[in-house]
């Protein structure tokens, strides 16, 4: 089977394959243009007759559960990333697969992390054919250098749910690491020594996978409440000594930045939002887990406090900072997709206004509405932006695939999408003639805020008008690009190979761009 075939130019002008890993694909047709027809994927009908009456679905260990689930060559195995860099289960699954001599697996994680570098030998020996999920760190580097046997497929969180729901990806075995579960399979992330908050990324997996295994180190008597994962979807429950390292869900990027330059960017962003009238009593926002985004949330808090306003809700990624705003009464609800620290976990456990959500509720583009488009302000990062406001979030300017998409693409549909980014990083200008990899079309990106000025997308005449007399440093994106290049020099175009090593899916399942092999 060829990794990919039949290249064509999509509506964004990018060359993308129409066949990926043997399956037909739809090239990107434009924002909002592709509408699927037909019905959702239907998983196999189960009968309770096949399950014990006493509800005890425990298996001796993970190996037994995988064998009973019918683990064999070519299957699709899914995992979630709520433990982030503290995940302990994904590596064990493929250790077992390797031991059993199973080959050619598709790993379908909601994201991968450096702790899964352990899997590189299995990618090399063919135990794993490919990763379909965002690839961070060493796995991204491995894929970028063309070493993965199959073609990588990167999806947003919403796109991952959409792919499961639409039947684009059919999961054979889903393994759900859970901080707490009962023997029937009900599970949650808020209780137990390894509490990670919630298990929303695994919701679609539990609903649509052929077999579902819950793994826990805190097996409690029925019922495990709250049942974020319903045991009625679960085939086997496995008890292990340790399911994940809760302390490692905290990453270096989930703390307020101390960098004066990034604090300046955060301050300018907040001033822009205030000047443009985007912040008001009852507004809503989403800020990511990066240090700059978290600082912006703090500035938003100052503005709310000053005006005696409240935000109706924050879409999160939560950690101590949005939790503090919630507990101060400056925010009414946190709608949370993943917790980034233990304060977030505690708040979700204790505060009924800290709501557990999933990619289905927040991001699924093939649903009856979209939370993302209801949010007033979304603040996101990017590795590159081009003069047409197109943005890249997965590859560095040298072509290496080193970041995941996360919910980034899904969030672009907000009422105002702002990318606060430094004008250059380690000499590399962030604003380019053309992004190395297109992840988000420029028509959805409204404002770029850098430490040296703000560029507003010319399509947003309303915003331009609102801030024209604000005294803020408003510049064209071309001016910002020139300023960055005056400091750093004009960069060469990176030399990338012709070979495609991964594709980037748009939120509707179409292919928006290809990622080329890096020449080492």
């Amino acid at each position, binding site marked *: 089977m060829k990794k990919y075939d039949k290249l064509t130019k999509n509506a964004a002008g990018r060359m993308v394959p129409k066949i990926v890993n043997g399956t037909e694909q739809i090239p990107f047709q434009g924002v909002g243009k592709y509408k699927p027809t037909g019905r959702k994927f239907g998983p196999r009908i189960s009968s309770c007759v096949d399950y014990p009456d006493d509800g005890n679905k425990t298996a001796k260990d993970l190996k037994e559960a995988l064998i009973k689930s019918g683990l064999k060559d070519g299957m699709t195995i899914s995992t979630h990333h709520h433990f982030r860099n503290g995940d302990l289960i994904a590596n064990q699954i493929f250790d077992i697969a390797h031991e059993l001599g199973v080959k050619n697996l598709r790993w379908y994680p909601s994201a991968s992390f450096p702790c899964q570098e352990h899997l590189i030998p299995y990618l090399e020996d063919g135990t794993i054919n490919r990763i379909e999920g965002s690839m961070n760190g060493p796995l991204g580097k491995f894929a970028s250098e063309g070493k993965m046997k199959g073609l990588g497929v990167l999806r947003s969180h919403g796109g991952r749910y959409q792919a499961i729901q639409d039947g684009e990806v059919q999961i054979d075995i889903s393994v759900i690491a859970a901080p707490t579960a009962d023997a029937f399979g009900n599970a949650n992330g808020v209780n137990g020594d390894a509490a990670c908050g919630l298990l929303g990324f695994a919701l679609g997996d539990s609903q649509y996978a052929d077999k579902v295994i819950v793994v826990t180190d805190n097996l409690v008597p029925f019922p495990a409440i709250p049942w974020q994962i319903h045991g009625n979807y679960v085939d086997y429950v496995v008890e292990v000594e340790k399911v994940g390292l809760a302390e490692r869900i905290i990453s270096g990027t989930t703390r307020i930045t101390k960098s004066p330059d990034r604090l300046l960017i955060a301050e300018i962003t907040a001033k822009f939002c205030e000047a443009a009238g985007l912040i008001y009593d009852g507004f809503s926002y989403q800020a990511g887990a990066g240090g700059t985004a978290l600082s912006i949330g703090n500035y938003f808090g100052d503005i709310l406090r000053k005006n005696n306003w409240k935000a109706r809700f924050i879409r999160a990624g939560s950690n101590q900072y949005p939790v503090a705003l919630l507990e101060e009464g400056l925010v009414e609800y946190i709608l949370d997709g993943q917790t980034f620290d233990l304060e977030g976990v505690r708040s979700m456990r204790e505060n009924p206004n800290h709501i557990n959500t999933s990619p289905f509720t927040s991001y699924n583009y093939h649903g009856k509405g979209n939370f993302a488009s209801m949010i007033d302000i979304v603040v996101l990062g990017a590795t590159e932006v081009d003069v047409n406001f197109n943005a890249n979030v997965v590859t560095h300017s040298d072509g290496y695939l080193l970041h995941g998409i996360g919910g980034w693409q899904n969030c672009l549909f907000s009422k105002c999408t702002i990318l606060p980014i430094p004008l250059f990083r*380690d000499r590399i200008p962030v604003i380019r003639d053309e992004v190395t990899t297109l992840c988000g079309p420029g028509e959805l990106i409204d404002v770029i805020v850098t430490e040296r000025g703000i560029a507003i997308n010319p399509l947003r005449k309303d915003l331009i008008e609102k801030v024209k007399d604000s005294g803020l440093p408003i510049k064209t994106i071309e001016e910002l690009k020139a300023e960055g290049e005056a400091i750093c020099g004009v*960069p060469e175009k*990176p030399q990338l190979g012709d070979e495609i090593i991964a594709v980037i899916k748009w939120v509707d399942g179409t292919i928006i761009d290809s990622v080329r092999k890096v020449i080492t």
Partner: protein
Amino acid sequence: MNLCIISENSPYICWQILSQYLIMKTIGIAGNFGKNAKSDCRVTFEKKTEGGLQIEIRSKVNALYGKSIRKLAENVLHFFDIENAGFLIEDSGAVDFVLAARMEAAIKQVIETEKEYLLPQLSENTSSTEKDANRFSRLYLPGNTPKLMLNAGIHKPNGLILDLEDAVAPDKKFEAGFVVRNALRSLHFYNAERMVRINQIPKGLDDLRFIIPHHANLIILPKCESAADIKWVNEVIDVHKKEHGIEHPVWLMPIIESAKGVMNAYEIAKSAENIAAIAIGLEDYTADLGTRRTAAGTESFFARSMVVNAARAAGVQPIDSVFSDVSDMEALAENVKVSKGLGFDGMGCIHPRQIEVIHENFAPEEVEIERAKKIVLAFKEAEKKGLGVVSLGSKMIDAPVVKRAQNTIHLAINMGKLEDSWMDGLET
């Protein structure tokens, strides 16, 4: 360079003689490379007798700047007439002026030459400043740490200090001079006054060759104890100015950092026309007193008052010491209020986040602005009537008070506290 006009017994002569005995190495290494050395590079130069130029580049940004780094390396080597050499550049994203400085510093550890590899000077870096320019804040930047330089100006300090003294390790002093020189030519200062703190005299006199020809606005002299220090510095500055045909002013800001310096503060402040300000450095001063610096600052009250008094008597600006707790902005604000109350015109800062707090608290208060407006209007009225004396109510207003009021108005406008058109419609 002809230095024969320098006065006898100048410590600069001693330094020059000592420098001649520095042993040239066979391998030169300059710069920094490693985990914490962002925006920097390490260059290793080895002179050879054959084999041509062997340039090796290991750069984090090789995909985007590899060719331009190689071209720069070739240009530098050709400039110094080097035909056979090993040249290793380990780079973590240094911009051209840093790369060029590191290359030159590495080469000059091996090859003795008077030639200097100079990149074009930014036109904005040829501006001059006034003696009484606003100097609320001056931000210290370690002279050998490029990563802190590139964005320093965007935080809008009144002055940016490229520091060759305490912030540079002794074994890095040589290479730092090249970085500071190149920064003066190529770094974007965003309208901040271009300042350099040289080393303590006599070493500091040698630093001036990296600074004076490259349009520094102000030289900070550390640990200044007497008027003689100023005289020596000005002699060397004059040599460089003459050699390079420089006419723009080079201001001095001596820092008083010892008990002796405090006692001589007035002599120092009035010793030369180009002294724009005198500052106090409290870390060294308190050590010299045999005490330690406290938050209340009672131990330095005398010294601070002496410096303010000496500066005012000599007609220069009194500038306060830095506030070293970069995490406590409330304490900084209190410190600035005390400083302003004592009569200081500004203070140093060691972190960009301190700048705004310093500006806000040194800025003229509403009551000061209102009084300044009245004085300026009274002055206009007197001018209009052709009166030689300005009066406000029954009080006579002296010329220095008028000048100070004009400065207050100017500052208030610049800081957005007063409309530029405040006088429109007001009767004068």
